[in-house]
């Protein structure tokens, strides 16, 4: 079987899992300085699925595509450290302020410019927006079939894929011909750790903008080792309709952001007597919390 060409969509996000009290600024926007930038967790699950295909089908190639500011090159490097073959950083001020629609437009235009692919794999959703829209919208824009909520890739050939989908009330097995887009759940296999050899091989990998600011001692490396230059595309490198980019291409308008502090407003003390427990059960059944 010939190797598959796989694109992994990944996003750099603020680590919202450890939110402190300074996570939001007074104006209601995210205080990115207080939150470390990380590889979106479910995108790591997606990367793992792609790498497992590469393990199973020799000759497969995994490319990580991300859109973001210059520092999002970290996402490409993290991908390379774990086994991706290369990556593309889509970065331009013109993309700033994109909502899911503008983001999926930019990503799909970039994918059109890339060489033929068999599979696109993305995380189900990012932990900063929690929309789960970008993957499906990219599939729509590219006219591809999609399978969402994937937990396990049960079978893959150059012609089709069979996956296990984790749905709210159970599990579904679906098959679909390639090319295809998958979005992967957090319940899928955790991503493997960085590999020591790849880490040492790619730790100097940089985008052209980063190379300009790099330690001069190692500049010769980028001539000798082409794989150390991470491809960086600006808006001029892909075909776009300006109106569909960035803020102007984003119909989502933020009206107001509230700083919500979750706390229990009322609490009830229930004794261990049979009557109290009976009453609680009754209440939970009536409110459909259980049953």
């Amino acid at each position, binding site marked *: 079987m010939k190797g598959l060409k796989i694109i992994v969509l990944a996003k750099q996000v603020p680590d919202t899992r450890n939110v402190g009290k300074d996570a939001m600024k007074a104006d209601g926007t995210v205080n990115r300085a207080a939150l470390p930038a990380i590889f979106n967790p479910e995108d790591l699950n997606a990367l793992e699925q792609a790498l497992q295909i590469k393990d199973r089908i020799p000759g497969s190639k995994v490319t990580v595509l991300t859109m973001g500011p210059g520092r999002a090159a970290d996402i490409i490097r993290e991908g390379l450290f774990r086994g991706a073959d290369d990556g593309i950083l889509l970065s331009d001020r013109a993309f700033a302020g994109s909502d899911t629609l503008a983001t999926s437009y930019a990503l799909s235009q970039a994918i059109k410019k890339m060489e033929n692919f068999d599979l696109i794999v993305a995380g189900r959703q990012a932990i900063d927006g929690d929309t789960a829209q970008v993957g499906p919208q990219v599939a729509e824009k590219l006219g591809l079939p999609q399978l969402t909520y994937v937990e396990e890739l049960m079978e893959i050939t150059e012609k089709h894929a069979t996956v296990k989908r984790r749905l709210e009330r159970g599990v579904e097995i679906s098959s679909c011909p390639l090319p295809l887009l998958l979005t992967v759940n957090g319940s899928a296999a955790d991503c493997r750790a960085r590999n*020591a050899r*790849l880490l040492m091989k790619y730790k100097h990998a940089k985008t052209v903008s980063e190379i300009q600011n790099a330690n001069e*001692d190692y500049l010769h490396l980028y001539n000798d080792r082409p794989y150390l230059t991470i491809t960086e595309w600006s808006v001029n490198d892909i075909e776009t309709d300006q109106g569909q980019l960035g803020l102007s291409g984003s119909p989502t308008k933020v009206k107001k952001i509230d700083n919500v502090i979750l706390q229990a407003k009322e609490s009830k003390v229930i004794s261990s007597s049979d009557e109290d427990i009976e009453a609680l059960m009754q209440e939970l059944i009536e409110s459909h919390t259980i049953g």
Partner: protein
Amino acid sequence: MANYYIDNRDLKFHLHHPLMEKIVQLKERNFSEKDQFDFAPMDFEDAMDSYEKVLEVAGEISGDVIAPNAEGVDAQGPQVIDGHVKYADGTRDNIDALVKAGLMGMSLPRRFGGLNFPIVPYIMAADVVSRADAGFVNIWGLQDCAETINEFASEEQKMEYLPQVAAGATMAMDLTEPDAGSDLQAVQLKATYDEQKGVWLLNGVKRFITNGDGDISLVLARSEAGTKDGRGLSMFIHHKMNGGVTVRRIEHKMGIIGSPTCELVFRDAPAELVGSRKMGLIKYVMALMNGARLGIAAQSVGISEAAYREALQYAMERIQFGKAIIRFPAVYEMISTMKAKLDASRTLLYETARFVDMYKTYMHIAEERKLEPHERDEMKQYQKLADLFTPLVKGMSSEFCNQLAYDAVQIHGGSGFMKDYPVERIYRDARITSIYEGTTQLQVVAAIRGVTTGAYLNQIREYESQKVAPELAFLKRSLIIMTDEYEHAVKHVLDVNDNEYVDFHARRMVEMAGYIIMGYLLMLDANRDREYLRSARNFVKFGKGSVHAHAVFIGSSTVDDLGSYKYLLV
């Protein structure tokens, strides 16, 4: 989301010791592989950066995979199925994670698929993995055996086996037998050369073999029929694929349960000779054991780290009499002494690892070219120091490890006796460290020559001669007093001129040297980073009391006293 390398600043401190520059230069042959291998370092800074990044991976896997699996592995344990070992599920996951991360064969040369790391960062990874699960580190750490193949096997054997280790094959060293434990000269497993097949065949039984069903095993066997002592023993490589070895049972152990301790039956198991016949015990096992002892010292330090952290956390959270128990002198003294012993063990561990790095790297360079006279001298000097310090660090750190585990349970009170907290497992896991790869008593036998020849004293004088900041002078004054007491005690013992009397006091004298050396190393650490001043101060105080106690015991004893300890012999 835990990283056992990043959350422990002591590791980075020891990694960045001034001697590392020389070690890395030698190990990398002046960075001559940088154009040959895409992951080889360009220069010293690049190499150190790579060690740190790879240790971060080891720290992440330890914190996120191995540590969370430890409890389940301890409960499930390995099983024997059809004569072979089936690891606990968590063990399997741990191995997979480390293999995928390329953390096998870390210290092997790159041409065999290794990372060509010095011993220091390799031992540091063992330190980190041990903190996560002391039982698991045995399986991972047996990659040490590959170093013996790299040192003594033929080029063909290296090409055959080392890349397999780097790719994840697990190893074992099959030495012990039912009647040959501490006394390996009594090994009976028979090796006979089959002329027709052109292979050696192994027959017999091995016992207490850690990871005995590993893929590649180094086996000590009697190749010279009719001999009775160590000179009739040779070293063999057996590959599991070639069959002939079955696991009869796995021992039911007190601790390190995830690590399968096997009884093996060899029936015409085909094997290859390593190096020369008759050198098995005399040369190769000695080298193997030295590496393994350093590994156990790392394991002891990792367990100590885990015990200290569990104790500290509990003492800060547990409220009694209206305050956290760490606020009581009885508890805070215990915990700060634990930290001092931990820091002392760790500084001795990395000092020893650097000595081993220096001499082993020169030894390998000597295979490639003739060493310059000054290089030869340096190699010999570091080899002596490595031989001197290896039994010392194994003995001291494993005893401290047991003390820390004991104190950690004590701080937990009744809860520590229950299986609800990790200290219960840590306490059981700690116990083996002062027993296997040579009991503490045997480390003393190896170390006592350093006392009687004055080698420890010479090294103590070397540390004493190093300049330190004026505010550390008080430490040096105490250490000089301790050294005087040590010298007097040793003189008192040697003046009696009776070997049994030397043996009787051997452990006391070795411990005295140990306390002084650890004290000096902590003083030098404090000189480099004041963060270590508190541990240095607390340790020197503790060591001074212990050295004095030993000095009093020795000073007040005569050779006639031995009788009162021997009355049970009849």
